[in-house]
């Protein structure tokens, strides 16, 4: 049965995040011939309409109020709620990101809805929409469904393939001016401090180069960063490296910390504690570089090199430069 589907498109630095396109792919499948509406917030919203159309949106609702240039729970909540009331969707999808993960539960609570968070795949079986999501940070998985009524889910970045760009697609556009209850804009962002390099987000990176206790110091991350930069990837870390103060906790990958599923995960000087494996073992291809041939990380690695990361990583960077012609 065809459905009316709404997605909230995640924006970062005035550009659509990939997960917005991934949500569109889910929406197209669930819509089953029905209408897919994307809503996008902030003053750059109008510039993003075409890209949303090319990836599956039939209709785009832009909400350009300046209150939405910077994410706050309250402003996004009010705007999103008004969009939902207007669209009256059968299903809603957002990214499982700093935005979607934060605003969706509040919306669900207000509207009395179930919400299935952090989904890694979606299928339709006998008309029933079934979501797969990790539990215990990927040590196990569950299949879940919404019992009745509106379907609402957040989609984990980098797990569902976006539709190929179709430049012949167009969408109707509607600019919605949202009226805010100012008394209910209760948080103010005073300052934003950029700590991530080059905007490659760890949870969305195609390549992650990750360091453990074996990197030995803050400086020890430099060769890893070079390798990551060369591959357009991001640097991550194990809990051991974070606890030792070699890097910020924002980089931690594991059951506490971030869960990542890049195409390529390069683990450098990481022993592979079970809490770390939970955060990365569903990566598509895993390379382990470790001095200790008995290290656990080799159990989940597709390719392993037993050796000192400070020798191997620079060699790898040089070899890749040659092969990639950089």
């Amino acid at each position, binding site marked *: 049965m065809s459905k009316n589907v709404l997605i909230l498109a995640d924006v970062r630095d005035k550009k659509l995040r990939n997960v917005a396109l991934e949500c569109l792919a889910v929406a197209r499948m669930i819509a089953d011939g029905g209408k897919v509406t994307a809503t996008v917030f902030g003053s750059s919203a109008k510039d993003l309409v075409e890209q949303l159309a090319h990836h599956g949106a039939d209709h785009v609702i832009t909400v350009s109020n300046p209150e939405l240039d910077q994410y706050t729970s309250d402003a996004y909540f009010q705007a999103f709620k008004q969009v939902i009331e207007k669209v009256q969707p059968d299903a809603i999808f957002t990214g499982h990101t700093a935005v979607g993960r934060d*605003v969706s539960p509040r919306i669900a609570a207000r509207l009395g809805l179930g919400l299935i968070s952090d989904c890694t795949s979606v299928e339709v079986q006998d008309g029933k929409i079934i979501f797969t999501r990790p*539990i215990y940070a990927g040590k196990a998985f569950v299949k879940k469904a919404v019992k009745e009524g509106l379907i609402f889910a957040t989609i984990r970045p980098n797990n569902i393939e976006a539709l190929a760009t179709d430049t012949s697609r167009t969408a109707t556009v509607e600019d919605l001016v949202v009226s805010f209850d100012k008394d209910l804009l209760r948080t*103010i*962002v005073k300052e934003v401090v950029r700590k991530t390099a080059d905007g490659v987000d760890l949870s969305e990176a195609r*390549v992650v180069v990750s360091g453990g206790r074996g990197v030995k110091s803050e400086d020890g991350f430099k060769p890893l960063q070079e390798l990551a930069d060369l591959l357009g990837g991001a640097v991550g870390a194990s809990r051991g490296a974070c606890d030792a103060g070699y890097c910020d906790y924002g980089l931690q990958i594991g059951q506490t910390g971030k869960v990542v599923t890049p195409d390529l995960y390069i683990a450098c000087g990481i022993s592979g504690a079970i809490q770390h494996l939970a955060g990365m073992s569903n990566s598509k291809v895993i390379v382990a570089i470790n001095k200790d*041939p008995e290290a656990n990380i080799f*159990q989940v690695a597709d*390719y392993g090199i037993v050796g000192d990361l400070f020798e191997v990583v620079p060699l790898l960077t040089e070899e890749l430069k040659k*092969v990639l012609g950089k």
Partner: protein
Amino acid sequence: MKPSGIEMKGDICMDILVCLKQTFDTEEKITIENGRINEEEAEFVINPYDEYAVEEAIRLKEKFGGEVTVITIGPERAEQALRTAMAMGADKGVIVDIEELEEQVDEHTIAQILAATIQEEDLDYDIILCGYMAVDDGSAQVGPRLAELLHIPHISTITKLHIDGDQVTVDKDVEGDLEVIESTLPILVTAQQGLNDPRYPSLPGIMKAKKKPLSRLEVDDLDLDEDEIAAKTETLEVFLPPKKQAGKVLQGELPKQVEELVQLLRNEAKVI
């Protein structure tokens, strides 16, 4: 220095609530029996993110005076998590036993029960602290849901908390970047890793915790009917990911190994 807005309340300066969940230790392996996660012989701990919330609550109490109440929902074993939090320094605990509930529960159920418990126990709050997610279900929903049900603002994934009067300033982790956010009490915040370094309970703390007040509630004690708390979602299946085969450990001179690795990544794995 005591914040002025709070001082007026008299002896008890700050009413602090912490919602916590007891979870598997993160070092535990997961196995499945009869379609469910096998809990036998598992070690249980306070969910690590909730532990940051407990620690931060106790620091607030130490700074401003006041009372820390820890609340949990779960089977009887979860009482141990409350005792641990009280041994760290929380003053009292509330547990809502949901073992009698035959239906599945989800985040909607839990948020509804928490809100009703706060009401039933007449718990005042200037601030509510939760972990930003639980390391088992990992949905990150309950904090924001509870804030909405209580009609208060929330800020999630905080790594620093500063309170002055009724002014709240936090550092919020935004996927690696940082935002400095201001708001006012009452508020709900969820803790991200890096907020603090939780203390270990001391031996005297453990002894004292045994005598601290603990309320035991059942869902029937709350002003809720079954329809209100019925889960909105259902779990159809629990399964383990396919076991990964250990891969190829390369051999030979290091430069040759690196060369081979790049060829494999390019031609076999096709990821670069």
